[in-house]
């Protein structure tokens, strides 16, 4: 008997060929039916000698290979004329982060920046509106008194825990002075959790997290934590 695969679960202990005394399940067996506890041989002769299906599989992969190679060579004729971006490529790969997907939204909400006044001070008046509106509680502000009485307050510290942020954009909407904005920068990765807290100075630099010319990968960026 061995370990035959039971067609019917729960009846593994029955002997093959045993006649059931009564129906086991409603609709499973009728009385007197001979039970088979193994699947019938389902492979055809052609399947068992492998070769026809091996050839069919090879044909399929060879077709994909040749199609992609032809596509690459057509692309090459465009590329030598400097128009490589116009032609179709033989691979669906996108060289992230060197290039973004064409359907990447131009109004995508990503990394925050703090806007500045003319003298490079933050526009922010530390009113806590964004921190209050934040559903993820990831904005932490410490207010200080600004020397200019017309401004009243300014943020001594302005920390965004970017790993908690859900990029809802409520802070942007809540801000009365247009001090916080969300850019489309999405390369928000790092090797340390501590560095995922973006401080005031970093938010004020507006520096993109990935710069193509520097060939710096996200997470490798030099930044004082």
């Amino acid at each position, binding site marked *: 008997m061995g370990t035959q695969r039971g067609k019917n679960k729960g009846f593994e202990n029955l002997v093959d060929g045993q006649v059931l005394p009564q129906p086991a399940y409603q609709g499973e067996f009728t009385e007197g039916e001979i039970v088979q506890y193994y699947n019938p041989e389902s492979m055809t002769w052609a399947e068992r000698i492998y070769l026809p299906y091996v050839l069919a599989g090879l044909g399929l*992969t060879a077709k994909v290979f040749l199609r*992609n190679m032809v596509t690459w060579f057509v692309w090459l004729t465009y590329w030598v004329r400097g128009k490589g971006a116009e032609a179709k490529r033989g*691979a669906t790969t996108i060289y992230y982060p060197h290039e973004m997907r064409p359907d990447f939204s131009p109004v995508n909400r990503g990394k925050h920046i703090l806007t500045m006044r003319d003298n490079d001070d933050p526009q922010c008046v530390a009113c806590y509106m964004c921190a209050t509106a934040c559903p993820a509680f990831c904005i932490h502000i410490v207010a200080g008194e600004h020397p200019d009485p017309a401004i009243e307050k300014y943020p001594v510290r302005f920390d965004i825990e970017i790993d908690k942020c859900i990029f809802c954009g409520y802070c942007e909407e809540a801000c009365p002075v247009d001090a916080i904005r969300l850019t489309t920068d999405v390369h928000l990765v790092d090797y340390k959790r501590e560095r995922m807290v973006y401080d005031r100075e970093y938010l004020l630099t507006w520096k993109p997290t990935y710069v193509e010319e520097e060939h710096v990968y996200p997470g490798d960026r030099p930044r004082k934590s």
Partner: protein
Amino acid sequence: MDWAFLVVAIMNLSFVLGVLLNLGGVLTWVERKQGAVMANRIGANRAYIPIPIPQKGGGVKWSKRFTVMGLWHGIADGAKMIMKEDYTPPFVDKYIYNIAPWFAVVPVLVTFAVIPFGGPFQPGIMLSDVFGLVGADFASEWVMALFGERTFQMQLADLNVGLLFVFAVGSTGIFSAALAGWASNNKYSLLGALRSSSQMISYEVFMGMAILGLVVIYGTVDMNLIAQMQGDVWFGFLPKWGIFLQPHMFFIFMAALMAENKRVPFDMPEAESELVAGYFTEYSAMKMGLFMMAEFIEIAVIAGLLTALFFGAYHVPGVHGAGDAFYWAAHPELTPGNYVFGMEVPHVVVVVGRVGSFLAKLLFFCWFQILIRWTLPKFRYDQIMRLGWKILLPLSLVNLVLTAVVVLLIGG
């Protein structure tokens, strides 16, 4: 001393070693890239050779864009394996452990010695033509004095037991896996060695059986003669290649050869998902690299064997060289000479075209093997054994008997 023979032998040797060793490296790139293209991917393309670019404001910026479609990955692999620590575990049998990788590489390289890769050629006539073309008459006279009009074979060793030599040397490849696994003193290695021994011995049996049909038809095991016999045509258009004599045996022979190479779908001995790396689990650095190198060179050797036995070796239909003794003997009405579809050409055209044709066929079968490697899933161990002993071996035997009967009936 026969200086002409020595010079030709050195030319052949450098050609074969240059092609084989370079293919061993290039095929690692082909394997990666072809697998990528088959799966709509781009593949390995990050290894680069840094190029210094002076900047306008002074200083130098190192460009990382010189990647040549990832071709440096093979060099990076080799450099890595040579520079890694060559660690010998303390529990292994040192002597056998160290000698086992060479049993993998040497048989593979030696097997190619009997494969005819360019056919008969007359270096004196060929080189003096070339030198005459560029106006170096003294060189023409010199090569004519050295070679005369002698005909040499583009084959390292023109053995009359060629095919037997292939099997004899090929079976020593089993020692590499068996010794490596046994000397490693590791359960994974031992299991891999056992599997590889049984698999390779099983598949060697009908590798010989499968090719015996062709041997019966050709009536010789001399690879050079087998290659020469494939230079003719039937009915004026069909080349007399082995594939048209025994097309079914081609698949069986190739399956056996691929099983000998221990690659997917016959990668039981290594079976990364089951046995870590099989018989070379305990190997590191270039010793492991030798196993890998042997594997990739064997792809080229298998392709060479298939080409020589089934696809007319170096022959192109309609092209006949002055040295094709077999062809001119079979056609006494023709004048020996160098012809491309009846048009007389210089000897060098025929020789270069034939070497090119052999290389093209060889590369095609390398491509085909890598296509198989990226298409088929791994066999289960019992499936491999059943396929070998219960299906392929009887088929080979039946084919041998039928072929012998037919050859007897129609009188060879």
